[in-house]
């Protein structure tokens, strides 16, 4: 099989992944905080949060980085959305995971929708949001949590695990994010790891792994697209793919320009890393990096391949080169994200 066929496969794999995002449905009463939860999970203000009234008349669809699709379902079994149409209308059977979000007591709509889901063999996670508001005179929070769990079990008639979250102080999102990761299949796990916000170092490692796989795929695309050899390198690489790859890695780690330029991260330990990451993000930066690594890669290749005449050889070297450059950029991003996360974790601990 020629490298072209292989590349074509890689490309179609890339496209497939983008076409089939991980789909998560959220349901629950208006005001339970579904939009805030989506924002917390992706670590970015992906949805506008409405402070007012139940505006969810339609399913609200939030797409995040091609990989994730959140659907905020409107009320089940209301006059506007009768039960029998609901499953067809919103294509309910095609989600990978369901989150039942509640912040008060259980409503009939939630209970009956859950029963409908479980009779279809669907997995549903229960999220008790607004943990900061759980309070009752003369009772400890732990006691109240226990009561809430018991109530969920009673209402659903199943033993359930309840994830307590608070969008105010960020409580419980590490657990919820891990739970989502653990309840989806392998192909979807990569998407979650790639695009969700990391709340732990372990999650960052998963993210790195997912990015490495992506680099592997993208390098193939970059090398085979290679039409114009870089001046002074003689290896054809499509720099635009590399620029996209870098952007992809940064996005995965949530290292947006705005974030990197913010005062919050203007600390001496982070600045050199941030500067590198910003610098290499441009086309010129990519070319600079490629040239730096080209010497290394070329040295690895046996002398008989020089000069590079055949496109196949150029492509394979281009592939290796793109991958090396990609991985080096990934390492930088990973390191920065790790330090930022450690700061965050310490900040919360204090």
């Amino acid at each position, binding site marked *: 099989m020629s490298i072209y066929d292989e590349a074509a496969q890689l490309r179609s794999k890339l496209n497939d992944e983008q076409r089939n995002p991980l789909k998560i449905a959220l349901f629950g009463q208006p*005001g339970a905080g579904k939009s805030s939860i989506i924002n917390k999970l992706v670590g970015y203000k992906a949805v506008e949060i409405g402070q*007012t009234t139940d505006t969810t008349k339609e399913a609200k669809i939030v797409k995040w980085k091609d990989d994730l699709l959140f659907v905020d379902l409107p*009320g089940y079994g209301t006059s506007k959305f009768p039960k029998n149409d609901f499953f067809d209308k919103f294509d309910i059977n095609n989600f990978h995971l369901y989150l039942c979000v509640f912040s008060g*007591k259980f409503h009939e709509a939630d209970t009956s929708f859950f029963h409908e889901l479980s009779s279809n063999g669907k997995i549903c996670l229960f999220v008790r949001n607004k943990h900061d508001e759980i*309070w*009752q005179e003369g009772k400890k929070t732990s006691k109240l949590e226990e009561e809430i769990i018991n109530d969920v079990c*009673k*209402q659903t008639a199943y033993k359930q695990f309840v994830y307590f979250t608070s969008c105010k102080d960020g409580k419980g999102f590490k657990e919820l994010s891990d739970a989502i990761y653990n309840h989806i299949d392998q192909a979807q796990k990569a998407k979650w790891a790639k695009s969700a916000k990391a709340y732990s170092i372990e999650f960052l490692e998963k993210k790195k792994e997912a990015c490495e796989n992506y680099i592997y795929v993208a390098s193939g695309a970059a090398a085979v697209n290679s039409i114009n050899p870089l001046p002074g390198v003689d290896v054809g690489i499509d720099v635009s793919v590399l620029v996209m790859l870098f952007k992809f890695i940064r996005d995965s780690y949530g290292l947006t320009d705005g974030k990197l330029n913010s005062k919050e991260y203007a600390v001496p330990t982070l600045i050199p890393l941030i500067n590198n990451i910003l610098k290499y993000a441009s086309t010129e930066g990519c070319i600079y990096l490629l040239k730096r690594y080209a010497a290394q890669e070329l040295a690895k290749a046996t002398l008989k391949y020089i000069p590079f005449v055949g496109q196949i050889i150029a492509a394979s070297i281009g592939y290796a080169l793109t991958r090396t450059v990609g991985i080096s950029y990934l390492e930088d991003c990973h390191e920065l994200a790790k330090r930022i996360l450690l700061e965050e974790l310490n900040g919360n601990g204090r």
Partner: protein
Amino acid sequence: MWWLAIPVIILVGKGIYDAVTEEEDKAPEPREKPTRCRKSILELNLERLRSELQSHNGRKIAILGQPGAGKSSLLKKMTNGEVIPLPIIGTQTDATNWSSDRTCNLISLYEKYVFADVPGYGTSNHPTHVFKTTFPFSHFDAFIIVFHGKFHGADEEIFHFAARTGKPICIARSFLDSLEQDETVAIERDIRSRLKADGLTPVIFFSNRNGNGVDIVFNTIRY
């Protein structure tokens, strides 16, 4: 011509008999068919509420709202814990339950006030439509509609039922302690535009946790 009424009386009598026997047949079944038997108990309790209100003097106030809105806590807080009997407060669904016991307590007394701490509507045991059809709105002198989070479609419907009586209504948003200043402004504006409520219907923010605003809620329906 009086005999013309006989078939009617028989039919009505049979209807009552059926309703009562069916009720008793189904009553011991636990959880199996909640909609059928529980709905009836809730309806019977709502009818009993009507007659209890008639036999009491005093200012009658209904506290209505979604489950978990903070109705029972508000009642306890407003009366400094002196209302008799004390409402049942709990994080579990249907802590206040009118759907399983035909003799459960429906009203609480405090000074000259008669409070009905109504169970949250919209749970499987307390469906909203039963409140809309059976709740004795006209027997009350004032209403407090409590909500938490967002003002739901069901709250809006209940508000309109209460508004038809022409009695004072207070819309009370709980959990003030976790709201920012600008959020309260946005919420109030939204409710006013949705209910087309004139400036006279008070929209009050309060917190059961630190007691802020609880007195203001009480004052709006006190007289």
